[in-house]
């Protein structure tokens, strides 16, 4: 890995730099896109847990398809929606690796619903970073399963109408009821405070894998200012004013064996369950 050389003035200290687990390249993401923040948070956690040389990332299809260029770890690029299946194959062969998928909402919540549900069902020791920006970004702003009711997209002219196009899919709520899911949380990339909480959640989702507790999934409410046709600032505010009410933030599940035993529960508690599961719908900001 090459770094640009730069002479640090004496008497100063570095307080912010590129994480070791990110490559030193310019990304293709649009100005105002929150993928860069999400990438950085994942890379910071990989650095802090000192797992870069054990990490294997699975890039999906959509805007984050090129994630393999940005994470400085072993990477596989998976077919649309199949990242959890590919990750399963890697992890079963190499249990010493730390495997994560990075998937958008078109990928995970539309074409890949079977793969994510069953990876969670099997309790695969994987970490899933799920970017929910309520739209298909890469293909030009089509409706996603996560698109809000009334939200205008290129395939929901006049706004998503439930009578024809159904309702937004809440992935965390759905996955958290599966016994094989160990850690499930939703955070927003809309403010410094919520970004700090997002990083904590990502760390917990990696720790769940390291402790072999099962699937860890973090949903990150993200902006797509270009396809939402908003300024980057307005897009971040729109996450909080429009997305958070539909997609409540919080930890939906944090299962531990000790917690389960204390509750003498025959199954892993889901949202609203006993020890280890924080109350769902924890308020934002």
């Amino acid at each position, binding site marked *: *890995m090459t770094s640009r050389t730069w002479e640090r003035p004496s008497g100063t200290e570095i307080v912010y730099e590129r994480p070791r687990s990110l490559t030193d390249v310019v990304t293709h993401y649009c100005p105002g896109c929150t993928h860069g923040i999400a990438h950085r948070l994942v890379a910071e956690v990989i650095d802090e847990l000192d797992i*870069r*040389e*054990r*990490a*294997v990332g*699975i*890039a999906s299809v959509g805007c984050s*398809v*090129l994630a*393999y260029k940005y*994470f*400085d*770890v*072993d*990477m*596989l*690029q*998976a*077919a649309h929606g*199949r990242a959890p*299946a*590919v*990750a*399963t*194959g*890697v*992890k*079963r*062969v*190499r249990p*010493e*690796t*730390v495997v994560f998928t990075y998937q958008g909402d078109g990928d995970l919540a539309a074409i890949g619903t*079977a*793969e994510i*549900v*069953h990876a969670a*069902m*099997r309790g695969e020791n994987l970490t899933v970073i799920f970017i929910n920006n309520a739209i298909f970004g890469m293909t030009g702003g089509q409706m996603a399963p996560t698109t809000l009711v009334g939200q205008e997209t290129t395939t929901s002219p006049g706004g998503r109408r439930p009578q024809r196009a159904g309702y937004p899919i809440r992935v965390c709520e759905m996955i958290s009821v599966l016994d094989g899911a160990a850690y499930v949380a939703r955070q927003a990339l809309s403010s410094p405070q919520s970004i700090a909480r997002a990083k904590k959640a990502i760390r917990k989702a990696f720790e769940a894998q390291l402790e072999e507790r099962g699937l860890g999934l973090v949903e990150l409410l993200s902006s797509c200012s270009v396809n939402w046709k908003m300024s980057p600032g307005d897009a971040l505010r729109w996450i909080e004013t429009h997305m958070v009410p539909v997609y409540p933030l919080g930890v939906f599940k944090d299962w531990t064996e000790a917690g389960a035993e204390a509750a003498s529960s025959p199954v892993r508690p889901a949202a609203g369950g006993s020890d280890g599961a924080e109350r769902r719908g924890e308020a934002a900001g």
Partner: protein
Amino acid sequence: MKSERVLMKGNEALAEAAVRAGCRYFFGYPITPQNEIPEYMSHRLPEVGGQFIQAESEVAAINMLYGAGGAGARAMTSSSSPGISLKQEGISYMAAAEVPGLIVNMTRGGPGLGGIQPAQSDYHQATRGGGHGDYRTIVFGPATVQEMVDLVGKAFDLADRYRTPVVIVGDGMLGQMMEPVVLPDPVDPDRLPPKPWATTGARGRRPNLINSLHLAAAECEELNRRLQAKYSEIQAKEQMAEIVHPGADYFVVAYGTTARICREAVGQAREEGLSIGLLRPITLWPFPTKAFEEVLETAKGFLTVEMSLGQMVDDVRLSVGGRAPVRFYGRTGGVVPSAEEVLGEIRRMVEEGDEGR
């Protein structure tokens, strides 16, 4: 510890041969007539430190294979026709990203849900790539349980050598029949050649990437040229066929279960004094064109017999190149042709000669 001859069902013999070839990971989904393969693997793989996953779908199973092969393991999946259709996306990705792996198709009648009886109507799908894009896979069409067992090890070796998915096309008959087999000596997967390209965690090296995305057209073309060069090498080096009665005037061309029936019909025809041989492709891709060049020195006509309404016959015609008439006889939908039917076709071919062209 060379194995003794044992009586085994085709599907189970294939599964055991895979384990002995160093396969430690199996991903599959139930579908008739191949269920004995996942059933066998579900108890056998844990015994040798491997893993079996019953996936949620054929799509997931092939993508697990993509991950496992990408991580450097010998791994496989098996299915039957409708399930193989679902796997095509993943096979295309494996071919493009150059991930080795074994895919077994115990073919049944189609199209659609079809039936569960033996068929050979997935020939085009298997030999033309099957999924999207400009690629091929190595395809074996064994005719006996022993040959199927022997080809499993070869399939894994070629998959690793050429970094490509390899397909074994059997059918319901081969999978379900019991025959005596001698199983190969076990291979220790830890002693196989290393795979420095695999995604195993970038410990002390630069990260590896397994990928099939090439947004720049010239880059994507370059990948395709590289794949085609590999396929040309495979065509030159890996053709396999059996020629029974070389030097005959006429040849029946058949593979797999159909070849067994044709072998009997050819024997009967020869007892009647007809000069007839059997050309049996073992690799369906690369198609054994060299074997055709050999028999064309004497052959005055060919009869292709398939359990389909005519798929391999296209390759026979391409290989013969108009130098002799090529006839076709097929049954399909799970109907297996009888030796008597084939014998009747052989007699007609010899009687009509060029008129049957």
